[in-house]
């Protein structure tokens, strides 16, 4: 299902001979890139700019620019307690989920990568098969399980299943990472008197930090954006996460398009900021994960 080799460092200086193979960048390249960026950004820009318009502007000229610019929509949303409560809910869910997934995932990945025991293949296959169980398939009975635990309308009712569903990807990214730590380091650690667990805490944790950060971010963004599970579990407005909030807001204010756009653009900001801060990590981690 996934490759298990990984290079911890793949950057090497590029020699001049390869510029022919990689190709140069003529005006055509820049033009295509520009068109591409435009296409990618138009919907995002539409949402952000729309928030600065009034409803009458939007009705009379749906594809126009704001004139004059109005900040009142954004101010209204930011002054709205609902928005901040939903931000807080989403933050709690995403932080707890990522911390738990990274912790539990790192430990079991260490077992899968550095211990040899009977049933290891089966354990790995169990988690790998988990990639085939997206939350969609299990959602109906999952709702029953969460309800029987008394966690409907509680954030824990979203967090606990999310941990389970985020583990397979995390493990599949981390196992090759941990396996790539050279045997010699483990031997050196054990000569110095560290056991397997000492090796784990003193060597593996620091060495696997890049992989840990990558998976942590992926889990965080996944949780921040997740919709189906909260849709089933959280029915009470007070427990809504941002995606549910966006949807509730857009049906509640369906006639106030400008305000919906302002709410929507504010709610995509956190994920965007978070992502642009850690972009290198995410891309680097994916390189390791799906290296054919």
């Amino acid at each position, binding site marked *: 299902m996934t490759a298990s080799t990984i290079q911890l460092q793949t950057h090497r200086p*590029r020699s001049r*001979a*390869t510029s022919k*193979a*990689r190709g*140069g960048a003529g005006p055509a390249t820049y033009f295509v*890139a520009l068109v*591409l*960026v435009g296409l*990618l*950004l138009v*919907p*995002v820009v*539409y949402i952000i700019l*729309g928030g600065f318009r009034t409803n009458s502007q939007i009705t009379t*000229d*749906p*594809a126009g620019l704001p004139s004059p610019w109005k900040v009142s929509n954004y101010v209204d949303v930011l002054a709205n307690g609902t928005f901040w409560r939903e931000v807080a809910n989403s933050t709690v869910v995403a932080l707890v989920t990522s911390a738990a997934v990274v912790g*539990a995932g790192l430990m*079991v990945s*260490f077992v899968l990568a550095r*211990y*040899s025991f*009977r049933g*290891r*293949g089966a*354990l*790995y*296959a169990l*988690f790998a098969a*988990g990639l*085939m169980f997206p939350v*969609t*398939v*299990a959602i*109906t*009975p999952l709702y*029953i*399980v969460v309800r029987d635990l008394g966690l409907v309308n509680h954030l824990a009712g979203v967090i606990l*299943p999310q941990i*389970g569903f985020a583990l*397979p990807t995390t493990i599949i990214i981390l*196992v090759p990472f941990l396996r790539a730590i050279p045997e010699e380091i483990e031997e050196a650690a054990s000569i110095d008197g*560290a*056991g397997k*667990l000492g090796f784990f805490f003193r060597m593996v944790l620091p060495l696997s930090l890049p992989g840990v950060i990558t998976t942590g971010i992926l889990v965080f963004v996944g949780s*921040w954006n997740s919709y*189906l599970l909260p849709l089933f579990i959280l029915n009470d407005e007070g427990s809504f996460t941002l995606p*549910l909030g966006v*949807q509730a807001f857009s049906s509640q204010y369906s006639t106030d*398009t400008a305000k*919906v*756009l302002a709410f929507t653009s504010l709610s*995509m900001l956190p994920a*965007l900021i978070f*992502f642009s801060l850690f*972009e290198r990590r995410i891309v680097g981690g*994916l390189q390791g994960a799906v*290296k*054919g």
Partner: protein
Amino acid sequence: MSDSPVNPLAVKNSQDDRSVVGAGSTPAPAPAALPRRRGVGWRTRFEIAVLSGPAVLMFVGFVIFPVFLAAYYGFFRWKGYGKPTDFVGLNNYKIILTDPEFHAALGHNLFIVVASLVLQGPIAIGLALLLNRPMRGRSLIRVLIFVPYVISEVIVGTGFSLMLATNGAANGFLDKVGLGSLAHDWLSDPDIAIWTLMAIISWKYIGFAVILFMAALQNIPDELFEAAAIDGASYWQIQRSITLPLLGPTLRIWAFLSIIGSLQLFDLVYIVWGQYVAGTAGVSTMATYMVQYGRTAGNFGYGSAVAVVLFVISLTIALVYQRFVLRRDTAGALTDKAAR
């Protein structure tokens, strides 16, 4: 998570750890050094249990167990309260498999699977090759191309449904540039809706494919390009004979992820088309069908049965794909390295 004070205890593990660990769980240990093995084996087992316990518990409890529950509930007519008692055997499955609405949903899913591969694959490869060229602002483009992937489906759905509405910005723009005749009911016209959906899906997920392919391109050793360049190969010859074949494994894994994602598609359709319009606009999927007739209608037994059908279809396609397409890539990854 595990802050048990194990460091000082673990001192005795020696460097022939691996063989010792193996012996701990096998009944017949190798002849040498018998006396020490037992204790180490037990401690190792304990470590394995403690380290893998939380993950296994969460995974089995919230992923595997509900899937089996779905299989069980699928045999009942059940509204979700009390214990399921109204056993109906395979009746739910009979209804699903003969329901034209489900057939339509399945058809849409299969269309989306194929169209995603055909549309996104070539475009993503082209973009990856393009962005692999040394150029100004490349890292900025790499960030921007990933932006749609990071934005949640709900936001994408909300934005697009406003933009593509009959009196929305898309038609407004066409009017402005004098192409008003091209304006359509992008969302509600059943002839167009599924293509609109494909456009939204491609917009949202192509960045992921491009990033994967770019990563793979950068992992191709420069020596290969140098050798080819010395032999006088042109840019396109190099791409065709070196880059594309070496991109193969990544391409096949991406296709796998794309297929699974297409079969499970829910969020975008549900947000843009709402729960009832999806069917009439011709964009319903198996998952929206499941939610509509399961949870929303309060038929938890029936919804579970739909989940089982959805799962069996996905699993079958995944296994066939792995058997015939992914085999050469994973030979070794799953069987050798993990199982050994």
